[in-house]
C-alpha cells in the first residue's frame, strides 16, 4: 500500500498551506516540464491515438512510450518520505531522468559529466540540431491531445444508482483514490463512451476501455466521525471496474 495513493484525507498535515501561486519557482523547472511535454508528444503510444499522428515521419530517436502513467508511476514508487521532501518538479526531474537512463537513451555517467560541465559553465550553449519536424509534432500533440475515449459504452449503472467502490489489490499504480475504497456513493453522471487508460494497472483493473461515472459521495460516508461539520458532497470520476452495485438498502424495491 502506497502513501501516494492514500494522500486524500491523510491527517496530521495540519500546518498552513503554502499558498504559492507561481507555476514555477525556479527557472530550471520550466525546462523539465517542457521535456516531459515533448516526450509525451513523441511517445510511441500515440500510434494508437485518435488523432492520426504520423510518427514515422518525425525524425526523433525516441521510440518508447512516455505518458502520464509513466510519470505518475515514478512519483508513486518513491519512498514516501522523499515524496514529501522534494518539490513537485524535483520529483519530475528524478523520474524522467531515471526512465531515460533505464531505457538506455543516456547513461548516468554521461549525465554526470554533462552536469559537471554545466555547473562550471551554466551559460554554455546547448548542442545545435534541427528542431522543426520534431517541434511540429510536439505542438500538434499539445493542440490535438490524446483522448482516451474509445467506442460506445454499455454502462452497467445509471444516474441515481447506488454503488459501492471496490477494494482491488494494491498495485504499482492506480487511479482509485485510497480514501474512497469500500465507500458507498450515488451515480451523478454517466460519461458518454468508454475510456481506456494509458497502461494496464494489473490486478487494480485499469487499461481496457470502460465506462466512467461521476460518483457523488456524502462526507459522512467517506470520513465517518472525522468528517467536517456541515461537510458537503465529494465527487470523483470513477472507472466502472472500481464499482459494484451497493447492497440493496432496507425499504428499497
Amino acid at each position: 500500500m502506497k502513501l501516494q495513493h492514500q494522500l486524500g484525507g491523510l491527517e496530521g498535515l495540519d500546518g498552513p498551506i503554502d499558498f504559492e501561486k507561481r507555476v514555477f519557482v525556479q527557472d530550471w523547472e520550466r525546462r523539465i516540464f517542457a521535456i516531459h511535454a515533448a516526450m509525451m508528444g513523441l511517445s510511441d503510444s500515440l500510434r494508437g491515438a485518435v488523432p492520426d499522428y504520423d510518427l514515422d515521419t518525425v525524425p526523433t530517436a525516441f521510440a518508447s512510450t512516455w505518458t502520464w502513467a509513466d510519470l505518475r508511476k515514478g512519483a508513486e514508487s518513491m519512498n514516501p518520505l522523499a515524496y514529501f521532501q522534494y518539490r513537485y518538479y524535483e520529483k519530475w526531474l528524478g523520474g524522467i531522468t531515471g526512465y531515460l537512463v533505464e531505457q538506455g537513451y543516456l547513461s548516468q555517467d554521461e549525465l554526470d559529466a554533462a552536469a559537471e560541465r554545466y555547473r562550471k559553465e551554466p551559460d554554455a550553449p546547448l548542442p545545435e540540431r534541427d528542431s522543426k519536424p520534431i517541434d511540429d509534432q510536439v505542438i500538434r500533440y499539445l493542440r490535438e491531445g490524446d483522448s482516451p475515449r474509445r467506442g460506445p459504452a454499455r454502462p452497467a449503472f445509471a444516474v441515481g444508482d447506488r454503488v459501492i467502490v471496490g477494494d482491488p489489490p494494491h498495485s504499482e499504480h492506480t487511479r482509485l483514490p485510497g480514501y474512497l475504497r469500500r465507500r458507498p456513493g450515488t451515480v451523478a453522471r454517466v460519461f458518454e463512451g468508454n475510456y481506456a487508460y494509458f497502461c494496464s494497472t494489473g490486478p487494480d483493473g485499469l487499461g481496457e476501455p470502460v465506462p466512467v461515472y461521476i460518483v457523488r459521495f456524502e462526507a459522512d460516508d467517506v470520513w465517518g466521525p472525522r468528517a467536517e461539520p456541515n461537510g458537503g458532497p465529494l465527487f470523483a470520476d470513477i472507472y466502472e471496474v472500481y464499482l459494484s452495485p451497493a447492497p440493496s438498502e432496507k425499504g428499497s424495491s
Partner: protein
Amino acid sequence: MTAQFDYPEDREERSAAQVRALEALLIEKGVIGSGTVDKVLGYFESEMSPLNGRKIVARAWTDPDFARRLAEDTPAAVAELDLPEGMAGAEGEHLAAVLNEPGVHNLVICTLCSCFPWPVLGLPPYWYKDPVFRARAAREPRAVLTELGVPLDPDTEVRVWDASGHARWFVVPQRPAGTEGMSEERLADLVTTESMIGVALAEAPA
C-alpha cells in the same frame, strides 16, 4: 513542512545543471531538437494560459444560455468561443465546468497527482500540487477555504471534485455584485486562476 529535511546547500544549482545536462544530451542523441523546449514553453506562455478560462467565465456571466450550455456540455460550449486552437488538446480533451451559484461553492482538487485543465487554466500553480493542500482539501475543505481567505456562509454547500479519471474540471465563480454593465473584457480581468479552481472568489474592483 520542509524544515524537518536536510537539503544540500547547492540544491537548485545542482538541479539546474542536471536539467541542462539532460536537455543537452537529449538534443545530442536526437530525441528532441535545439528549440523544442523553448517552443513548448512559448506555446503555454502565449496560447494556453488562464486568459482562456477568464474569457469563458466572462461569457458565462454575460450570457445565461452559454452558462447553461457550458455546464451541460463543456467542450462544445468552449468550442463556440474565439480561443486559440487546442482547447480540446492535451489535458483539455474532456473539459468539465462546474458552476458556483448562490448556496453552492465548488472546489477542484487532484489527490492522486496534479490533473489540471491546461488549455483553459494553463499549468497548475504550486499550491494545487502541494501534498498538504491535497491531503486536507479532501476531508476538510471548509477549513482550507477559510484558511485561504474565502468567505463562506455556513449554509453554503461546498462541493469537492477530485480529478481521478479523464475529466478535467474547472470552476466558474459567481459574478461579483456591482459589475452590472461591465464589458466582457473588464469582467474577464476580475477572474483569477485561483477563483477558477475554487480557492478564491471573483471580486469586484475596489
